[in-house]
C-alpha cells in the first residue's frame, strides 16, 4: 500500500505538546492524541506538558527503544525553535534524525486562532499530514567540509583592524585588503571620540601599526577583491593590487620624493583633509598613514599626462623605489571565512540645497570640521572659516540626510553625539556661542546622556526644531555679513532667525556607492536602505545568509565606534569558532540532479540565488554543489524535466503531506486509504 523506502514498516510515534498553556489552552490536545492514535502506522500517541524538556525528550527516546519506533512526529512550536532539539534526541536513541518531523501547532494554530473547535480540527489536519509524510522519509547523512583556517578581511577601518588583530592574535592567518592607500578608515579622520574625548588618533594608530607589524597579518592596501568563489571553508579569492607607482617593499616613507616634486607648492585638494588643504601629485595620505608608503596620483602627475616631466622625484629617491611603469598585480589566495567591514560614506550635503553647502563658503560638513579642529589638520587645529575669520557664533544642524523621506529615512545614530562633541570642541577652541538645532536628541549609550548634560551646562544652546534654511539675506543690520538660520523653536513656539558665522551640517551615514556591487561579489543580501543584511537582526547580527561570510561595522548599518569594535570582535569570534571546529556540518536538505533525466537546458543555473549550480560541459548536464546549496527549492520547481530532487522535499513526501492535509482524505482513515491507493 505505502512505499516505505526501506525494509522497515513505518512505526510512528506521535507526541503533542501542551507548551504549558500556549497550545493546550486553545487546542484539545487529548482529542488530537486520541485521533492520531487511530491513524495507520501510528504505534504510540502521547501528549505531554513540555515536549522540549528533558523528560519530554526522554519519553521519545524510551519509546523508540521499547516500541521499536522508526518515525517520530512532534506537534509543538516552530521548527525554527526546536527542530534541532528533537532531531538530536532522535539521533541519541539510535534513529536517523531525518526520520523526525515537526508540526507547528503553536504559531500556526493556537497563537493565531480564537476558536477551540477550529483550532483542534486544524491541529488534527496538520498532524495527519505529517503522519502521511513521514512514511516517505529517508535516512540522510550530514556532509562535513573542512575549514581553511585563513581569514580574509575586506576593509581596513576600525572594524577590519579590530577583527584582524583578534584573529591574528589567536594564531590564525589574516589577509586584510584595503581599497585606500592606508588603513584607518573614517576613524583616522576624527579628532576626538565621544563621550570620553580621547584623541582618536592616539587610540587608533597603535592598532594600525600593530596590524602592519603582526606576523599573522598580510596587509594589502590600495587593493580590491576582484573575484571570489567557493564556499564556506574553502573560498578562492583574487585580489587586485592597484599600482601606486612606488615599490612598497623599498619605500621607507622618507618623503624626499615629495620634497623634490617639480610642483614646489601643493596644488591639488587633499582627500584626507576633505579638500581643506592641498597636496602634491606624489603624497602620503596623512602623517600616521599605514603603511608609510608614498603614492602617485596619475590624474595630476605631469609625467602621466605628458611624459615630459624632469622626474626629480626619481632622482631624489636613493632607494630606487619609484617605478612609474608599475601595473596592477593580482594575488590568489584561499581562505575559509570572510569578514566584510567595508564601512559607510557620509551623505552628500549638496543634495539638501536649503542649507547652502557648496554655495556659502562658511557652511561645513561635520567631517570637514573634524579635520578643522584636529591639531594635524589643515589649520593646525585653529577653527578658522574659509574667509579667514574666527567664528563668534556657530550653528550645528542635526539630521542632514537623516530622518527625511527625501533623502534617507533612517536615523544615523551617531550624529547627535558627534554634534555634541563638535559643539564642545568648537566652544573650547573659539569660545563661540554654539547652537544645536535638533529634532530629537538621541543619546543612548554609556556616558552619552551625561555628555549631553555636560554640554547643556557648558551653555551650548539647544533649539528643538529642524532648520528650514540657511540664508545670507539679511533682514536686520545684525544679520549683515552673516549666515542666518531660520528655525522654529518648537519648545517655545516661535520662529527664530539666528545669525551665525559658521554652519556645521551633521551629515548622516549611508551605504557606500558600490555597496550593491560588493554585495553581488560576495553573494550576500542588502536591506532596503542598501546596508548589508544580517542573518537575524538580534540573534545573528554579524552573520549573513551566506555561510562563512560575516559583516562588521557600519557596512551593516549606522553605528558608532564602540558598537563597531564590539561587532568586529563578534565577527572574529564567529570565524574563530568555525576554524576551531575544523569542519562544518551541512544540512542535508540539498538538491541534486538526476543525471539520467537532465536535458542540459541550463534553465536552473541563472535561477539559483546561491550560484550553486554549474554546467558540466563534458557530459552536458547541470551539477549542484552541495556545499553551496541552501535547499531553497527554486531549481526543483523550475526544472522542466523534473530531474532535480531535493532531500526532505521529494515529490512523494510533499504529495502525501498534501493528501493528508486535504479534508476529504482524513475523515475516515479506512476511506482515505482507499482514496490514496
Amino acid at each position: 500500500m505505502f512505499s516505505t523506502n526501506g525494509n522497515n514498516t513505518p512505526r510512528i510515534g506521535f507526541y503533542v505538546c501542551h507548551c504549558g498553556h500556549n497550545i493546550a489552552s486553545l487546542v484539545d490536545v487529548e482529542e488530537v492524541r486520541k485521533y492520531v492514535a487511530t491513524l495507520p502506522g501510528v504505534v504510540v500517541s502521547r501528549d505531554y506538558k513540555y515536549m522540549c524538556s528533558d523528560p519530554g525528550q526522554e519519553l521519545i527516546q524510551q519509546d523508540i527503544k521499547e516500541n521499536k519506533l522508526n518515525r517520530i512526529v512532534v506537534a509543538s512550536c516552530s521548527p525554527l525553535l526546536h527542530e534541532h532539539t528533537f532531531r538530536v534526541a532522535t539521533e541519541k536513541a539510535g534513529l536517523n534524525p531525518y526520520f523526525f518531523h515537526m508540526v507547528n501547532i503553536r504559531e500556526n494554530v493556537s497563537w493565531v486562532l480564537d476558536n477551540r473547535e477550529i483550532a483542534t480540527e486544524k491541529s488534527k489536519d496538520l498532524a495527519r499530514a505529517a503522519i502521511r509524510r513521514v512514511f516517505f522519509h529517508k535516512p540522510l547523512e550530514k556532509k562535513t567540509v573542512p575549514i581553511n583556517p585563513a581569514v580574509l578581511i575586506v576593509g581596513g577601518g576600525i572594524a577590519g583592524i579590530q577583527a584582524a588583530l583578534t584573529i591574528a592574535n589567536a594564531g590564525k592567518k589574516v589577509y586584510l585588503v584595503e581599497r585606500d592607500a592606508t588603513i584607518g578608515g573614517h576613524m583616522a579622520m576624527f579628532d576626538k571620540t565621544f563621550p570620553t574625548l580621547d584623541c582618536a588618533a592616539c587610540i587608533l594608530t597603535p592598532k594600525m601599526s600593530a596590524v602592519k607589524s603582526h606576523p599573522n597579518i598580510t596587509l594589502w592596501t590600495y587593493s580590491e577583491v576582484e573575484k571570489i568563489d567557493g564556499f564556506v571553508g574553502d573560498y578562492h579569492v583574487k585580489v587586485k593590487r592597484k599600482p601606486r607607482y612606488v615599490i612598497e617593499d623599498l619605500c621607507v616613507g622618507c618623503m624626499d620624493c615629495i620634497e623634490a616634486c617639480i610642483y614646489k607648492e601643493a596644488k591639488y585638494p587633499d582627500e584626507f583633509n576633505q579638500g581643506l588643504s592641498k597636496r602634491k601629485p606624489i603624497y602620503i595620505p596623512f602623517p600616521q598613514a599605514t603603511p608609510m608608503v608614498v603614492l602617485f596620483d596619475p590624474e595630476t602627475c605631469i609625467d602621466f599626462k605628458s611624459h615630459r616631466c624632469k622626474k626629480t622625484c626619481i632622482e631624489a629617491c636613493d632607494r630606487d623605489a619609484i617605478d612609474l611603469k608599475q601595473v596592477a598585480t593580482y594575488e590568489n589566495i584561499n581562505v575559509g571565512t570572510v569578514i566584510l567591514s567595508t564601512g559607510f560614506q557620509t551623505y552628500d550635503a549638496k543634495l539638501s540645497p536649503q542649507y547652502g553647502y557648496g554655495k556659502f563658503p562658511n557652511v561645513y560638513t561635520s567631517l570637514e570640521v573634524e579635520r578643522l579642529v584636529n591639531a594635524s589638520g589643515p589649520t593646525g587645529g585653529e577653527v578658522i572659516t574659509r574667509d579667514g575669520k574666527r567664528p563668534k557664533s556657530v550653528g550645528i544642524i542635526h539630521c542632514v540626510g537623516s530622518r527625511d523621506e527625501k533623502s534617507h529615512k533612517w536615523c544615523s545614530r551617531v550624529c547627535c553625539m558627534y554634534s555634541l562633541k563638535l559643539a564642545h570642541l568648537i566652544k573650547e577652541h573659539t569660545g563661540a556661542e554654539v547652537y544645536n538645532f535638533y529634532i530629537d536628541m538621541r543619546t543612548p549609550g554609556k556616558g552619552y546622556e551625561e555628555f549631553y548634560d555636560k554640554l547643556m551646562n557648558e551653555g551650548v544652546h539647544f533649539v528643538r526644531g529642524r532648520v528650514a534654511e540657511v540664508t545670507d539675506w539679511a533682514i536686520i543690520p545684525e544679520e549683515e555679513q552673516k549666515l542666518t538660520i531660520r528655525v522654529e523653536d518648537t519648545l517655545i513656539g516661535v520662529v527664530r532667525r539666528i545669525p551665525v558665522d559658521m554652519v556645521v551640517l551633521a551629515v548622516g551615514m549611508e551605504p557606500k556607492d558600490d555597496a550593491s556591487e560588493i554585495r553581488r561579489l560576495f553573494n550576500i543580501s542588502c536591506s532596503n536602505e542598501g546596508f548589508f543584511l544580517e542573518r537575524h537582526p538580534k540573534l545573528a547580527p554579524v552573520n549573513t545568509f551566506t555561510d562563512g561570510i560575516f559583516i562588521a561595522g557600519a557596512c551593516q548599518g549606522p553605528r558608532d565606534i564602540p558598537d563597531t569594535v564590539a561587532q568586529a570582535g563578534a565577527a572574529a569570534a564567529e570565524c574563530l569558532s568555525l576554524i576551531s571546529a575544523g569542519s562544518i556540518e551541512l544540512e542535508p536538505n540539498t538538491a541534486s540532479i538526476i543525471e539520467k533525466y537532465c536535458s542540459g537546458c541550463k534553465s536552473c543555473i541563472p535561477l539559483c540565488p546561491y550560484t550553486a549550480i554549474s554546467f558540466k560541459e563534458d557530459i552536458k548536464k547541470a551539477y549542484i554543489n552541495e556545499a553551496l546549496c541552501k535547499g531553497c527549492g527554486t531549481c526543483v520547481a523550475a526544472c522542466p524535466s523534473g530531474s532535480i530532487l531535493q532531500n526532505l522535499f521529494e515529490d512523494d513526501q510533499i504529495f502525501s503531506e498534501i493528501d493528508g492535509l486535504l479534508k476529504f482524505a482524513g475523515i475516515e482513515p479506512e476511506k482515505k486509504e482507499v482514496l490514496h491507493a
Partner: protein
Amino acid sequence: MDTTIDVKAFAPSGATNGYRDIHRKIKYESELNKGFKNRVAELSHGEKLYSCIQCGTCSAACPVSHYMDYTPRKIIQMVREGFKSEVLSSSTVWLCASCYACTQECPKGIKITDVMYALKREAISGGIYPKRFPSAVLAGSFFKQVLSFGRNSEGPLLLKMYMKTNPLMLFKNMKLGFKLWKTGRLSLKTEKTCKKGDLKKLLSDIDKQREEVTL
C-alpha cells in the same frame, strides 16, 4: 521689533468683527538677552536649570499650569534662550502657588519653584510685573508689611490688596469678612513685633553677606 499690521484696512468695509490684529512674531537674536539665564541661575542657586531636558514633567505636575500663558517647561527654555521680557511679563510666575510639585517631580533636580521666586524678584526689581495682578500685589504688600512691622496682619493686608486690585471685590466679600471678624478670625488691627527694626537689619545683613560671597 513687533510690528502690528492693521488688518482692518484689508477687511471689507464695515466688517471688522472677527478680524484680529496680526502680529509679526518672528524672534531676532538681537532682541534676546544673552545674560539672562546666568542671572536667573545665580539668583535661584539654580545653575541646574542648564540641565533641563524639556520633558514637561513640571508642567504636567503643576496644578495651575493650565491657567498660565507659558507652562513652567516653556519658561525654563525661554530663560535659557534669553527671552527676558516675555518671561518677566508672563502670568506664569504670579500664578505659581509654590506647591513645589514641579521641584519634587523634576528628573534633573531643578528647583523650579526657586526659579519662579527668582523671576518674581527680577520682575519686581525691573518694574515689569502686572501691576494689578492679585498674587503679585499680595506678594508685594505682604513683604512690605512684614518688613516694616515684623508681623503679618491679615485684615489690613486684604484691605490693601482689594484696594489695589479690585475694590468692588471688597464689597462683595464684606459679608464674609464681617462673619470672620465677629468670630474673631479676622482682625483689622496691625500687629507689630517689639523691636520692629530688627528684621530689616537681619535681612540687610544677609544681603550684604551674599554680595560678599558672590564678589
